[in-house]
């Protein structure tokens, strides 16, 4: 049972509230996470910290006592884990699914602690918690030692850039506070830590349940000299405070224009400091100016530092908008369009090589494609494994190509300009966290070979406007038949055409590709590139591919000049296409002999706004072709 006398608040609150508030107002803040394997006692430790720092009210304590007896796992004792596992599903299953944020204050500091899930399937939630943390407490069950999840979480913490690590060897009460057990675990962990590049960590023997070495040194571990966990948390140096000494980086979030006389650039200073009179450079344009004012509601500032949200005015009318970075003029970051990055994949849908995703870095958002990973990391052995893609919770290294240059710095130098997320363009889900390792020089090495004859010259000689007529629709919808009819008619009209047919291309150019989602994306990407080259040569290119995914069709559209990509949707109901079954493929798919067949066990995403739509139930192939030609006129 809980000793009610433990519940006391800071004496200064009652004696001199203003003095207390003055002291509290100037406290710094430490954000940390607890992580480690399932059942290592993370939630219990946080419950203990809240309890010992008097952050639990009487009504909450009463509810906790009731809950502990009802669903707790500690017999008649208080089950602190129930304080932090907040979701109904978590309490039912006795596990932590998502990060919970908790708050407590000591005399020296204010703390935000994120309790991170231990289960591997919730790794993305653990990374969410770690990304904003200054410090990580990695718990180990003294009876079990270093486990897979301990290694995994340590690696993730290290990867995400947490430099302050605490190794809390928990449940020491269950191993009779044996120093030999503690020393063996620390030695074991030290070996592993060194192998992944963790330079230092602080090891503590604790018991979350009993409270040993949490706030006071425990008599049960006379061999341990301290510090206690709370002492360490109160005094550890927060690395983010050195950000102010780095060169200025201010990603512009929003341009403030209340009237014609005021133009301010708002954003959170990522690193460095700024004063009126400082010379700054706006990237990626590279234009320079001088800071004229730092504007706030409370009056202009003489200086602002990393971590503050400000609005800057510049002396010159230079172009600057959301996504640009205002930087120290003498020491600006670079811009590039190809990177090597480390990715943590966070979605059930695996990474699709070649598919376009949104990349968001600071306030910049660009379209990107990810190349096949160079390798994935086996977090148990730290081995590099060759892989074709990244699945949920996989960590790997891959090259990323953006559709325009972005302003960046390597993640190890600057989190704010090196960390990014990838967003699926169709579902809008956040699918990956990424950290830029370095930019690839290749962009500068592979130059476009300038040619004297332009694509316009090629087209002019053929007396036509190049186009790509992109037929899409289910297998058996009639794409190839109609495409063939269209080409014949264009040929009679003296137009220079070329028909790329799905089946034909797979006999040559794409014969190495199968029908998995990744291979289908690559299939379309290659066809798109070929179609683009042919359009550059002045041809009217006709393609007939199922091309089931919107994202890939949009990717090809973006390769071509505006107006040259004509999406033609051959709209045929699945029942109709299946009834026709010209190649007998539907029957095979239904029998399970053909996997990933569009319409059966692989989705078809119809175009939302095709340039031309034909319905093959209402029209014959010839009528459809006539209709398409009519829509295409004039052709020059």
């Amino acid at each position: 049972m809980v000793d009610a006398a433990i519940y006391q608040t800071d004496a200064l609150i009652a004696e001199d509230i203003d003095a207390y508030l003055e002291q509290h107002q100037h406290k710094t803040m430490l954000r940390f996470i607890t992580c480690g394997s399932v059942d290592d006692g993370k939630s219990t430790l946080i419950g203990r910290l809240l309890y010992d720092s008097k952050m639990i009210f009487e009504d909450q304590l009463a509810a906790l006592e009731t809950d502990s007896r009802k669903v707790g796992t500690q017999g008649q004792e208080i089950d602190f884990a129930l304080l932090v596992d907040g979701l109904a599903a978590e309490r039912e299953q006795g596990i932590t699914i998502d990060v919970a944020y908790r708050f407590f204050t000591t005399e020296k500091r204010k703390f935000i602690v994120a309790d991170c899930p231990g289960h591997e399937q919730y790794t993305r939630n653990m990374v969410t918690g770690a990304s904003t943390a200054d410090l990580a407490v990695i718990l180990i069950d003294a009876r079990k030692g270093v486990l897979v999840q301990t290694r995994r979480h340590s690696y993730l913490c290290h990867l995400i850039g947490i430099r302050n690590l605490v190794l809390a060897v928990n449940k020491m009460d269950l191993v009779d506070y044996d120093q030999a057990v503690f020393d063996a675990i620390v030695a074991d962990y030290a070996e592993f830590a060194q192998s992944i590049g963790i330079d230092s960590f602080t090891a503590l023997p604790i018991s979350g349940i009993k409270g040993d070495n949490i706030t006071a040194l425990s008599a049960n571990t006379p061999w341990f000299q301290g510090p206690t966990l709370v002492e360490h948390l109160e005094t550890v140096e927060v690395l983010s405070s050195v950000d102010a000494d780095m060169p200025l980086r201010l990603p512009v979030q929003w341009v403030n224009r209340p009237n014609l006389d005021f133009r301010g650039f708002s954003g959170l200073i990522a690193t460095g400091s700024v004063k009126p009179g400082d010379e700054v450079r706006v990237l990626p344009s590279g234009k320079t100016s001088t800071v004229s004012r730092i504007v706030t509601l409370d009056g202009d500032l003489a200086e602002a530092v990393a971590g503050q949200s400000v609005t800057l005015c510049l002396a010159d009318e230079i172009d600057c908008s959301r996504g640009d970075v205002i930087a120290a003029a003498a020491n600006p970051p670079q811009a590039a369009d190809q990177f090597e990055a480390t990715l943590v994949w966070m979605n059930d849908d695996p990474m699709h090589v070649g598919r376009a995703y949104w990349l968001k870095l600071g306030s910049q958002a660009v379209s990107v494609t990810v190349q096949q990973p160079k390798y994935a990391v086996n977090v148990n052995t730290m081995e590099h494994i060759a892989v074709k893609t990244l699945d949920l919770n996989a960590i790997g290294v891959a090259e990323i190509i953006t559709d325009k240059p972005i302003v960046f710095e390597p993640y190890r130098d600057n989190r704010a300009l090196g960390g990014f997320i990838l967003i699926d363009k169709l579902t809008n889900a956040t699918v990956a966290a990424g950290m830029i390792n370095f930019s690839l020089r290749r962009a500068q090495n592979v130059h476009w070979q300038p040619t004297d004859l332009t694509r316009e010259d090629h087209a002019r000689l053929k007396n036509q406007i190049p186009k790509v007529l992109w037929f899409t629709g289910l297998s058996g919808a009639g794409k190839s038949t109609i495409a063939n009819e269209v080409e014949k008619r264009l040929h009679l009209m003296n137009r220079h055409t070329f028909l790329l047919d799905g089946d034909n291309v797979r006999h040559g150019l794409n014969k190495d590709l199968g029908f998995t989602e990744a291979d289908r994306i690559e299939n379309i990407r290659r066809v798109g590139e070929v179609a683009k080259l042919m359009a550059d040569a002045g041809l009217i290119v006709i393609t007939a591919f199922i091309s089931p995914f919107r994202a890939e069709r949009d990717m090809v559209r973006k390769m071509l000049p505006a107006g040259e990509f004509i999406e033609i949707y051959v709209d045929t109901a699945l029942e109709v296409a299946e009834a026709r079954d010209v190649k007998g493929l539907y029957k095979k798919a239904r029998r399970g002999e053909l996997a990933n067949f569009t319409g059966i066990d692989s989705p078809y995403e119809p175009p939302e706004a095709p340039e031309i739509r034909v319905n093959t139930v209402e029209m014959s192939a010839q009528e459809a072709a006539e209709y398409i030609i009519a829509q295409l006129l004039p052709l020059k």
Partner: protein
Amino acid sequence: MSDMTSKARLTHLQRLEAEAIHIMREVVAEAERPVMLYSVGKDSAVMLHLARKAFYPSPPPFPLLHVDTTWKFQAMYELRDRMARDSGMELLVYQNPEAAENGINPFDHGPLHTDMWKTEGLKQALDKYGFDAAFGGARRDEEKSRAKERIFSFRSASHGWDPKNQRPELWNIYNARKHKGESIRVFPISNWTELDIWQYIQVNDVPIVPLYFAAPRPTYEWEGQLFMADDIARLERVLGYRPEIVERPVRFRTLGCFPLTGAVESTASTLSEVIQETLLTTTSERQGRMIDKDAGGAGMEVKKQQGYF
């Protein structure tokens, strides 16, 4: 604020302020039609003040939305109208017509009162105006399911929250992308505690409803708790009798509908005294509110899944 200019480390309040301002600017840059939910309480007061700071010298580029139950304290309506005027923001007041028609009230209808006026009212208002992002003043230290919520909390087209499948939220990079009809609730003061709110109000002179300070007020007892008779005539009409009214020195730790918001006897009449009382108290802030008790331990989580803030 002069110490903000020193190279010394930022204090926790300065870090929290900068974070909230950053969040608000992201929303304005990325959402098509943002709105700020304004409940007139102390958390709303701080959120509104932060919005004025974030966009100064422009007024905050979104309206204030008050989802009204018609049962708020008179003093709340007064401050609401004054703050809208002072901030130069458009004020939208929404009252669920169905709740009004059926005379839904806290005495006869229990949990249905909150459900109809607040949860349904909020959903109707967001749909009516087509808001795709709504700022809310919820804090993670308030309640267990809120402790788990992201800063950008994604909601389905029917306003539902899926706590088991939240979007990962990395660093301070927020994903505001959504399909038509879907929306995002944004909580800029997620990481603030009750003490942070009070201290910020004190340091920045943020105007709050006087009901937070103790004063002699007409009170009555109902189901073992003390309430303020803010509108005696209306109380009498709904109850069918005149409750016994006693003048007591009371104040409120949170503000909502006056028949649902328990008063505490107090002499704390200055901010320092209020903070002192808050810190010395042994019960949690929401304890005076009846909403959390509706469905046992998971009350708020269920409400949130249904679309309540």
